């Protein structure tokens, strides 16, 4: 019987500081055992439980592309009261961590095929969105999907995640990247303004398009208004949620919203599904 509580060992290969506030780091994890790497198949939008012995375990969305199985990336925000996030940020390269997963449903990539995708991401919620974008952009997949638009908002350029990716994407012809920051900064080439008004100005066309929205609560709320105004139906707006979890496999009982467990039925929900659930998240 496979024991779902046992973590598999992964080695910390690289740590990248992502932002100027220094509370966001991306961790590159490589499987210690090659057979684990082979067995670990995931869909963009899924998450895994990362643990450090003696400290504990917590769920994080996978930020790397499913097409690149050798390395898993996680971008983690350190919270002053977060025991594990703090410990993670203090790790040095070479240390071995535990990993369980992948868990959750992931983005509905099959459903997204042949559709246009509008990705709306804010702050550090870009993690699984980046996984999705890189999945779609992969040469084996790109033709399956329609137009891909990345709309990324951050407080200031220093808080913009995955700068390398954004730059690379900008150079490509098969993805449109729009970046916005809250206030003007010298040398900034992107848009200026909060996410919602800039999105409105952009006026994305809802036809044959899915909107995938992740970000701070207030940003999601305001952007949803805009999307509704544009005519996006709620079943074609996709959100990914975060919740405190312990088991990740629908048993420990704490990540439920109504009768749905975020760890099993989520973390990805359409806005329509969310409207039918209680607001307890």
């Amino acid at each position, binding site marked *: *019987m496979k024991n779902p509580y046992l973590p598999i060992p992964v080695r910390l290969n690289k740590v990248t500081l992502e932002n100027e506030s220094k509370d966001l780091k991306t961790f590159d994890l490589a499987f210690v055992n090659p057979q684990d790497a082979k067995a670990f198949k995931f869909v963009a939008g899924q998450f895994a439980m990362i*643990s450090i012995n003696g400290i504990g*375990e917590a769920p994080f969305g996978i930020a790397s592309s499913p097409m690149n199985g050798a390395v898993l990336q996680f971008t983690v925000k350190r*919270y002053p009261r977060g025991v594990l996030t703090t410990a993670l940020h203090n790790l040095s390269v070479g240390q071995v961590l535990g990993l369980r997963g992948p868990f959750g449903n992931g983005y509905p990539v099959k459903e997204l095929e042949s559709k246009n995708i509008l990705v709306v991401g804010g702050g550090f919620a870009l993690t699984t969105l980046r996984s999705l974008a890189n999945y779609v952009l992969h040469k084996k997949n790109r033709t399956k999907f329609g137009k891909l638009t990345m709309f990324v908002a951050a407080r200031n350029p220093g808080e913009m995640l995955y700068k390398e990716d954004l730059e690379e994407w900008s150079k490509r012809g098969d993805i449109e990247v729009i970046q916005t920051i809250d206030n003007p900064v010298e040398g900034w080439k992107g848009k200026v303004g909060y996410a919602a008004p800039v999105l409105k100005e952009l006026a994305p066309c809802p036809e044959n398009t899915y909107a995938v929205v992740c970000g701070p609560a207030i940003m999601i709320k305001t952007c949803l208004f805009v999307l509704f105004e544009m005519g996006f139906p709620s079943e074609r707006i996709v959100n990914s949620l975060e919740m405190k979890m312990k088991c990740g496999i629908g*048993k*420990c009982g704490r990540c439920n919203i109504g009768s749905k467990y975020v760890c099993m039925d989520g973390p990805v929900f359409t806005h329509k599904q969310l409207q039918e659930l*209680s607001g*307890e998240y």
Partner: protein
Amino acid sequence: MKTHLWLLFLKMTLKILLGELMKTIKKDKIAKLLDFLADKYELFAPTSKDGLVVSFERIEEGKQAKLRFYNSNEAPKKLFFPQSETLFSYSKGERETVPEPKTEQQRIIFGLKPCDTKSLSLLDKVFDTTDFKDPYYTQKRVNTIIFTLACNRPQSSCFCTALGLGPFLKEGADVFVVDLDDKYLFEPITQKGEDLLKEIPGLEEAAEKDISYSKELADGTEAKITTKIQLDRLKEKLDEIFDESVWDEIHQKCLGCGVCTYLCPTCHCFDIVDEQVNDKGKRIRIWDSCMYPAFTLEASGHNPKPTGKERMRQRIMHKFNYFVETYDEIACVGCGRCLRNCPACMDITKVIEQINNLK
């Protein structure tokens, strides 16, 4: 509910089929029977240190068992889902030592009440799933034979019948035992139970009158449980009133302790924590309670269930709505432990009544 009818049918068929397999033993010989079982199996039975508080514990000798009892204070779920359980241990350094949960010796639990027996089939739905089987729980389930003791001493706080269950419910039992005043009646329910009964020496064939007396007792006991709960539209009602202010009233007197959830035979929420002493550590799972603020508190400080209101609602909804939605059964067996032990005398049946009475 469909499953209930189906089970009823199954029960009836079994009864007819197994009628002649029923056995009895005189009361003065029961200790000997337990001795026999304790010899071959890890035997658990109701015991009491002070003569009042009953608890299911491992016994070595039959005379330690206290078979005339209301019910144990703590639910026997702890025998399958202990309050603290090691998931794996490790030593410092890179590689973990991760022992698989060990296969234990075959166990017998003797004297489980029908409500608690039923609770195990509810816990099975959570832990014994096809996608992620919980090895720690299921291992213990597979290794355990259950002798359910019909309940002919319901308490005033019991309400199993209100949930469509009953003091003589056989669901989940391997052997069903009835106290017939001067003897015990044994009815095998599963093949495991039947095989085991064949092993036990000193059992006599049950007489027709034993079986009819047992039925008489069943009817008499059921009639003693008078609490009623309106279940017809409860799930829908709970959906409708999720945002109503009634929850402000319901949770008012709740103190926010974990008595109800820790003593509940169906509550199964847990936490996973690491504990380390020097260079040796283990990851353990421990009971947790939705009544605690930290249950859903996130590292960022955000808490989706920030006050007692949301937490109380979660507990009621989980039992009478969410669980029904997911598994088509109510996650309550009417054992009454939460009523009896709540420091504020919160009565879950009254809460349901209050909800049902809402317009």
